[in-house]
């Protein structure tokens, strides 16, 4: 089992560039996986709701790919190479629009929490701190929009 650092240990010293790259690669994987899920969801919706839901999911796909690109550039600027090892399983089952939005919300909430998690770990690195905070603002908006669509 990996040893988990205490909160004190996390905040005592700024992260090394290797640690920052590792954290960014985690975010990169989150965004790539979210893009795959969005693409799948956009094509799995059946029924009349498809008309309204498909554009939302396609926009989600485009945005997550853009986020992945931004993170990849950030990794490059730190001298790293983006690296990911994801396993995504998307079942061949048709979905209602509501179910697809629910799944998208699960993915967006996970991405938002991942950014919060990374923010805690990279405190001390000002530029990365700013970048992650900006991403948190964007992801929070997505989560709010999806929750609004579900109206649950």
């Amino acid at each position: 089992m990996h040893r988990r650092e205490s909160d004190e240990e996390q905040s005592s010293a700024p992260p090394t560039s290797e640690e920052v790259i590792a954290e960014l690669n985690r975010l990169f994987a989150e965004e790539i996986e979210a893009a795959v899920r969005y693409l799948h969801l956009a094509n799995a919706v059946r029924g009349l709701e498809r008309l309204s839901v498909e554009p939302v999911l396609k926009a989600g796909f485009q945005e997550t790919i853009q986020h992945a690109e931004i993170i990849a550039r950030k990794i490059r600027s730190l001298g790293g190479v983006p690296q990911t090892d994801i396993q995504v399983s998307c079942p061949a089952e048709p979905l209602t629009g509501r179910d697809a939005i629910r799944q998208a919300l699960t993915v967006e909430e996970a991405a938002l929490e991942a950014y919060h998690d990374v923010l805690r770990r990279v405190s001390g690195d000002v530029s990365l701190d700013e970048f992650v905070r900006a991403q948190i603002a964007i992801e929070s908006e997505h989560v709010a929009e999806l929750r609004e669509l579900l109206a649950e």
Partner: protein
Amino acid sequence: MQPGAAALHSQARTNPEPWRIIQEERNFWGRDVDVWKEFDHNIITHSAAHHLMSIDDLIGTHGYARVSDVARELNITRGSVSITLKSLKEAGLINQDENRHLRLSEAGQRLVDQIKAKRLLVKRLFTEVLGVDGAQAEIDACKMEHLVSSETARHIISLLKFIDSNAPAVAQFRDALRAFDPSCAGQPQTCAACESSCLAESLSK
């Protein structure tokens, strides 16, 4: 009638033993069609089992488990963990409190305890009885832990208890196993373990 079946019937009248073996083999493969489906009907997938075990480990070590902790421990994305946990919540195996801390339900804990016990049993069987290397046994036990039935696990317990009993027969068994030459000298026809071809050779291909 399938090609060759008439010849087999005729052979069965004169020598019933090969016929019995063929019948058993057919029964086995006929049963196997349903067995592989049973694999899919298993209560949880291999991945889901690891999520449950990870939650149990994290709670045991730190007193709590969050989605991010599970993701880091399993080295997968939070998105992936969230999707899997959603189905585990729906199955009533885990709960999440208001602080988003994960807990195993009573059924989830029972399942984890069973999987852990089966992993230990399979590992012990492989290392202590079969002599498999510890690291390889751990990997194989990990692959099988959630698939072994409780009935089979009980039989493994009986065997391990016997091995632990220090009965004279156990020492004899260990000595005999160590001294036994498992090669069939390229003659699978006369080998009790092999079928139409040498099983050991097919593993080394």
